[in-house]
């Protein structure tokens, strides 16, 4: 069985760690962005699963695919994957994931924001790009998106380049690329945060606290029906 | 090449832009069309980041100017660092594309003279 597992398990590289940072959001709350450990995936999965029920803006497919990627990482069936989480007082407010394709190229998978209205998704996406370019020292990151809205915003915000010959792992569509040059052109206005994270916040961010499902759905959908009494 | 026109009152010579039925100065309703062009002073400006789907740029720069004739207009600025009071000169060029339609309008660049 050990031999079969060796065949089915991709070879693993030790990726340089993402150094945690702290971001003060518009609300004044402090969000810690840190790397999640493989053994923390079971904490993340229920919230991601809950979002597969939200049809709006492609939340359902993003969550379904991210669920598979995270579970795949947990069960040693995805090569060189990483996950960064955003935590406020330990509570999960967003996550991003991707993987290292080669020494020179990274692949961005997904971005899920659980807290809305505070640019959590923007901060986490930027952290992901920072990880690939500045910490994994890659030359470019392949990017694609399920949501037309999310995608067009990043395409314009970062000035992404087309890579027509590269079929993205997410469904085989044409990839877009954030190159090192493009990244450093935009870095000052897109990548923020302070290091090191103060010790008291490090402590609070040690354990990931998931969001209760009904609160999560309420946060994400902002539906006016909830006012009905 | 398209033109942007101002409306010169046949009665009193007052110049207006955009079109109105009546002259604001004398009330008469007949006008000559005169190209709106030349040197202008920048009155105010903004860089706009949240645009309609017709635009792929990250931002565009818009400004309100006052021509030497006293007529004011809004146009696109081809100026990296605009300053209120700066001297500009106009030209007409595409400002927007929607599907197969291209619309031309006023552009302003730093005036050399």
């Amino acid at each position, binding site marked *: 069985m050990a031999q079969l597992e060796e065949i089915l398990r991709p070879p693993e590289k030790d990726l340089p760690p993402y150094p945690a940072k702290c971001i003060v959001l518009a609300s004044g709350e402090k969000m810690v962005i840190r790397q999640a450990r493989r053994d923390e995936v079971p904490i993340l999965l229920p919230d991601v699963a809950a979002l597969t029920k939200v049809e709006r803006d492609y939340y359902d497919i993003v969550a379904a695919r991210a669920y598979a990627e995270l579970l795949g990482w947990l069960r040693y069936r995805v090569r060189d994957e990483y996950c960064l989480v955003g935590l406020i007082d330990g509570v999960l407010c967003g996550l991003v994931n991707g993987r290292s394709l080669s020494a020179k190229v990274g692949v961005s998978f997904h971005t899920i924001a659980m807290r809305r209205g505070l640019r959590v998704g923007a901060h986490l996406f930027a952290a992901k790009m920072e990880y690939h370019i500045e910490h994994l020292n890659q030359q470019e990151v392949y990017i694609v998106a399920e949501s037309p809205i999310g995608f067009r915003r990043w395409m314009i915000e970062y000035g992404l380049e087309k890579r027509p010959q590269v079929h993205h792992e997410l469904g085989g569509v044409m990839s877009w690329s954030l190159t090192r040059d493009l990244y450093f052109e935009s870095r000052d206005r897109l990548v923020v945060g302070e290091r090191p994270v103060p010790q008291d916040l490090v402590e609070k961010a040690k354990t990931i606290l998931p969001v209760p499902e009904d609160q999560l759905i309420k946060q994400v959908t902002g539906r006016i029906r909830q006012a009905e009494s | 090449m398209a033109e942007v026109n101002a409306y010169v009152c046949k009665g009193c010579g007052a110049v207006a832009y955009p079109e109105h039925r009546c002259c604001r100065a004398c009330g008469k309703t007949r006008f000559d069309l005169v190209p709106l062009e030349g040197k202008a002073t920048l009155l*105010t400006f903004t860089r706009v980041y949240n645009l309609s789907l017709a635009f792929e740029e990250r931002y565009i720069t818009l400004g309100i100017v006052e021509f030497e004739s006293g007529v004011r207009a809004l146009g696109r600025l081809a100026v990296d660092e605009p300053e209120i009071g700066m001297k500009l000169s106009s030209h007409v060029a595409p400002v927007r594309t929607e599907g197969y339609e291209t619309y031309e309008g006023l552009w302003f660049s730093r005036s050399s003279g």
Partner: protein
Amino acid sequence: MRDVYIIGAGMTKFGRAGDWTLIDVLEYAAAQALKDADLKDDIESVFVANMGAGLLNHLSGVGSAMVDRLCLWPATAETVENGPASGGSAVKVGTMAVGSGAVDTALVIGGEVMRSVTGWEATDFVATLSHPEAEYIYGVTLPSLAGMFARLYMDKYGITPEHLAMVAIKNHQNAMKNPNAHIQQTVSMEGLLHRPEAVVNNPYVAEPLRMFDCCPVSDGAAAVILCTKEIAEKSGKPMVRVAGFGQATDTHAVHERKDPTELTAVRLAAERAFGMAGRKPADVDVAELHDAFTILEIAESEEAGFFDKGTGHIALENGETRPDGRLPINVSGGLKARGHPVGATGVAQVVEIAWQLAGKAGERQLDDPRVGFTCNFGGFGNNVLCFVFEREG
């Protein structure tokens, strides 16, 4: 004109309608107001304020559709469109309908479902308010007009980005007590402006205005029931009278305004409203102003006569416009935090004032306000409505 009273008010929460249609959203607000009014008399006229039914929701004749949905046949019905001032216009025509003696009762509903399209499409939809040849084709958006105005206004009177942020901070704080608000999230000066993170937290939308200087795109509806004095007295409810209204227009293209730092239409509309009501700005206990952009709350507070020109930001800084201040402005959270479904806003402002004057504003209730004021700003200030309301008895 006869005296006109508000006898019922209601609204949806503002936010995202989801699978609710425009008609559903309008029905909900109307039903709340009808329940609140508990009228024995029939509703004789219906006015629906809305801007985007045609462009966004593929609907027309919404006034007639609402009579049908609400089973109010054979009441008269119209849809009233005046851009972001549709709500104010609908309240005005409803007031005139009852005040003229043509009808004894009017249901005024304002609503919008604009989150069914992308943010870019919503921006473009609102931009259709601008002058088609002289502004719209250039890529003008409402925020861009506000940005150009803000630059001049801030330079002229020494208003800082911090002053603008104070409006947002105040209104977000106020909305924490408003269960119908679109956004219930406090914000801080640190996160909005002072930290390096502000460049991402609060990016420019149209310089010098940033994301948190602009109201959100919202779905929702609000409704009021207007009636004669006899009907109001019979009901035994608090007597809230539409004491006065005023409206004024200005040039369409913003560059043609006589003075680009003056909101002349606001000043005229307010003067006319106070004139009709026989009241002065100093008499006002609570106001709902049109803070689609934070700069507008400051500018309108001056043009309406509450503060001298160029001092509105000082009053704000001194806390005079907070709920515990001399003149609470936007206790509801304003457009900034309560939200701005375009057609609903003018009516929602009236709903908040009606609730305040009737003692029904829940956690937000101020201490016995008697005179209220609203300002509903259409286009970029080329069509403005102001109202004065009074509590009697």
